[in-house]
C-alpha cells in the first residue's frame, strides 16, 4: 500500500481533472485556458494500421513531426477559444452539447517527491460525448497522458497527449476540446 500522501495527491489531481471537465462542459473556455501552461504541448496523433511488431515504431504519428490531429501550443488553443466566442464559428453554432467523462486517473510519476509534488505525470481515460443540432452524435474514446505542474494552490497542464482509438476519423469535425 502506498503512503497516504500519495492517495491525497491522486485525489487532488483527480479533482483538478474533474474541475477542468466541468469548465469545458459548462463552456467556460476562457477559464479553461487559464489552466494551460504557457509552454503547453497539446498533442493527438493520427493512428495507423501496421503489421504486428511495428506498433512501437509506426502506429502513432510523433509529436513535433509531420501531421497529427493536434500538435499545438497554447496560442493556437487560445485562437480556437476565440473562434468559438465569435458566435459565427458555424461548426460550433449552435454550440455542441458535450460531456467529458474522465476515468482511470493514475499518477504515473511524481516529481521531485510525493511530499513536495511540483510535477506529476497523470494517466487517464476519456470519453467525450458530443451531440449537436438534432442528430449529430459522436463519442470519442481514448487515453490521455498529462504533465501537470503545481501552480500555487492549483495546477497547470504543461503537456497533454490524447490517444484517440480511431484510424479514419469517424466524425466530420474535431471542433471540441479533449
Amino acid at each position: 500500500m502506498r503512503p497516504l500522501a500519495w492517495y491525497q495527491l491522486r485525489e487532488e489531481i483527480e479533482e483538478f481533472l474533474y474541475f477542468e471537465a466541468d469548465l469545458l462542459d459548462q463552456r467556460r473556455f476562457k477559464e479553461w485556458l487559464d489552466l494551460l501552461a504557457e509552454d503547453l504541448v497539446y498533442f493527438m496523433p493520427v493512428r495507423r494500421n501496421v503489421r504486428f511488431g511495428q506498433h512501437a515504431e509506426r502506429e502513432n504519428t510523433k509529436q513535433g513531426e509531420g501531421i497529427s490531429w493536434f500538435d499545438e501550443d497554447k496560442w493556437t488553443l487560445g485562437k480556437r477559444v476565440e473562434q468559438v466566442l465569435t458566435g459565427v464559428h458555424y461548426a460550433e453554432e449552435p454550440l455542441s452539447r458535450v460531456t467529458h467523462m474522465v476515468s482511470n486517473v493514475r499518477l504515473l510519476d511524481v516529481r521531485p517527491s510525493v511530499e513536495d509534488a511540483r510535477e506529476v505525470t497523470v494517466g487517464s481515460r476519456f470519453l467525450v460525448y458530443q451531440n449537436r443540432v438534432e442528430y449529430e452524435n459522436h463519442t470519442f474514446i481514448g487515453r490521455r497522458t498529462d504533465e501537470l505542474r503545481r501552480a500555487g494552490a492549483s495546477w497547470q497542464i504543461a503537456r497533454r497527449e490524447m490517444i484517440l482509438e480511431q484510424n479514419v476519423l469517424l466524425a466530420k469535425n474535431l471542433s471540441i476540446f479533449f
Partner: protein
Amino acid sequence: MTTTLPIDQMIDLKRGTISREIFVSPGYYREELEKLFTRAWLFVGHESLIPKPGDFYVSRMGEESVILCRDAQGAVHVFLNSCRHRGMKVCRYEQGNTSLFVCPYHSWSYTTDGRLQGVPLYRALYEGTLNRDEWSLIEVPNLALYKGTVWASWDPAAPDFLDYLGTAVDHLDQVLDCRDGRPGGSEVIGVHKWVFPSNWKFAAENFLGDTYHNPSHRSVDMIGIGPSAQRGQKGRRDNEYNQGHHVWVGHPAGHGMHSVLMPPTMEYEPSYAQYPIVDEYFRHCFEERKRRLGEKARLLPFTGNIFPNASYHGRQPRGICVWHPHSPTETEGWRFFMVDADAPAEVKDVLRRFYMRYSGPAGMTEQDDMENWLYATAASRGTIARRYPFNYQMSMGAYQTDDPIPGDVSLQITDQTPRNYYRVYASYLKGAPWDELVGRPSMRAAAE
C-alpha cells in the same frame, strides 16, 4: 428518391440551375460509381509514400480500396485490394514494405507486380484448370506518375493523363513544383482521413473556385490564424496575392481552379511575419522562382479541383485532398499535406503547424466548410426541396476563352467553373466518348 431522369433534365446550363437530385439521389450516385469513377483519372497517392521497392500504401478509388505499390524492380502499380479467389482484402495494413501480398483467407499470394504466385496445393488441386496468369491482382489499365503524384483510371480507352489534364497542368504545376520553381520535388508529410455526411461534390465544388463562400469563414478571418497572426494580422493566411489579379479558370475536361495572375513587376510580399527565417526562405524562393520561370512565374495557385474529386490548396496551406464517395450523403476525405522535400526543418515545422490549424476536421477554417456541406446535403434531401434546383447563375457568360491564359477565364468570382464541371459531369453520366469528355471545342459547343 431513386428516380434517375435523363441527366440533361437535371442540369440546365442555359438557365444556370442544377437539380438537387444529383446531390442526394441513390440513383445518380450509382450512375456516378458506374460511369464516372470507372473512367475518369483519379488521384491515388504520391511517390514519396512508397520510396523503396516493396513499399506499398493502401489508397482508394471511388468506393474501393486499392494498393499503390512499388514492385521489386521499382515500377509503380495500382491494384484492386481484393483477392481473385474469394475476394478477401489482401492487404489490411495502411502502409509498409513487403515482397508478397499473402491473402489471410486461403493463402493465395501475389507478388508486388500483381502476379498470382502462391496457390497452396496448386499441382494437386488446380493444375490444368486454373491459369495463374488470368488470376493476377486486378490492376488499373492506366497509371500516370506526374511530378511525384500518382493517378489512375479504370478505363483502358482513357487518354493520356497529360491530355486529360490539358491546360490545367500549368496550375497544377504551381502546386507540385518547388517553391523556388524547380519542377516537382514535393513530399507528403502526413495524411488526414475522415468521414462526413455530405455529398462528395459539395467538397469538390468548394475547391473548384467557390470563392463566394468566403463569408462562411468569417470567424477565422476575424481572429486571424495565418502564419503572421501573432504579429496581429487577421485573416486565414498571408497576403501573397495582394498585387495580383484573381482568375477563375475552367478547363475543357472539367477541371477548374481559382488562381492569381501576378503583375510582371511583382514583388515578394513579406509573409510568416513571426518567423524571420521562414520569411527569408520564401523571399529567396520567390526571387529564385521569378528568375527561373520568368513570365510563367506570374501564375500563383489558390485552390482547384482536377475532375472529378482531386482538390488542391496551392500555397497556404498546400496539399491535395481527395473526396471518396461512400454514399450519396457520405464522403471520406483524404488530405495529403505537402512541402518541398528539401525545405529547411524550421520551414517544414512552421508549415505543418499552420496546415493542422487550418485544414481538415481539426482545422479552424475547414470545420466551417464541413458544417455547411453537411446541412446543405441534409436540407436538399426532401421531396419538396428536390423540386427546387440550386442556383448557378453567378457571372453567367462573364468569361473569355484562352485569354489571358488557357481555358475559360473569368476575372470575377463565378459559377462558370462549376457550370463547366457539371457539363462534363453530365457527359460522363451519358457515357460520352472521350473526345467529348476531354472537351474538344466542337463537342463543348454541342453540349452547351
